[in-house]
């Protein structure tokens, strides 16, 4: 039976623009692996669309790009999509990845309690550095790549059928590899602190052996 992949990709500021572009390649991989892909870019990353897709298609893998806080993930123009205590039950039986800041802290835990298979994300603000001169071509931004590559790898690994644990290790290894490279004596190590922060606060909750 074919799997379904839902992804929100708001693009209303620099941050969401970068997150959106850096996760776009996962769509083609998912299609290649014969997933049904539900892409919600820009203004389509709204609550009505998200709730409707979650209820109608019950996707196996859900990726939320955007902002958020401890209790919520947001979409287009920071509209709340999923909020702890309100609608996290919609995430039941799904594998979730939220590149939305801090949502793993409370929403993540509550989602798993409500039946989400697993919830991966960050329990602190996700930080990344980018070159504003590359804003129109974010995927060519080598500074941003240091911070965003691991996220793409994480999603792709899950799509390819690896467990959450395996996928998390792959993602963490990318961040570590970037840290080690920048620590080389011929490099600028000033960004290491932010890579290290993201590595430390990248968490996965729920069933680590789950596959999509």
């Amino acid at each position: 039976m074919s799997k379904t992949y839902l992804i929100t990709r708001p693009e209303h500021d620099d941050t969401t623009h970068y997150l959106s572009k850096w996760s776009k390649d996962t769509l083609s991989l998912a299609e290649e692996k014969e997933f049904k892909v539900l892409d919600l870019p820009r203004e389509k990353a709204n609550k009505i669309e998200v709730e409707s897709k979650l209820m109608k298609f019950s996707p196996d893998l859900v990726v939320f790009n955007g902002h958020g806080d401890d209790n919520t993930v947001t979409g287009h123009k920071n509209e709340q999509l999923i909020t702890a205590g309100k609608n996290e039950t919609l995430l039941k039986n799904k594998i979730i990845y939220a590149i939305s800041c801090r949502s793993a802290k409370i929403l993540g835990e509550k989602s798993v309690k409500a039946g989400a298979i697993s919830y991966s994300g960050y329990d602190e603000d996700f930080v990344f550095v980018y070159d504003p001169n590359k804003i129109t071509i974010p995927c060519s931004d080598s500074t941003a790549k240091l911070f965003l590559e691991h996220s793409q790898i994480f999603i792709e690994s899950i799509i390819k059928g690896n467990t959450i644990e395996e996928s998390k290790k792959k993602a963490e290894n990318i961040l570590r590899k970037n840290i080690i490279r920048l620590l080389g004596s011929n490099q600028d190590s000033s960004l290491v602190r932010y890579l290290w922060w993201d590595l430390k606060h990248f968490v996965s909750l729920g069933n680590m052996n789950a596959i999509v």
Partner: protein
Amino acid sequence: MKIPKDIKQLVIARLETLPKGRKISIGSRGEFTKEELIESVKKEDEIGKKIVEIELEFLRALKEGIIV
């Protein structure tokens, strides 16, 4: 809680070493130049406090060995 003077000076000195012409996205708080971050640390606003937290956490982690 007020940030001690030497901590502010430390964080500002470290922020000065960030590369020019880059912006830093900090969660849902926005995107900032290093100059804006330095101002935030001086003002001790929410962003400034977050940056201080990130810097101190990193410095404290060095004693455990940074490659873990």
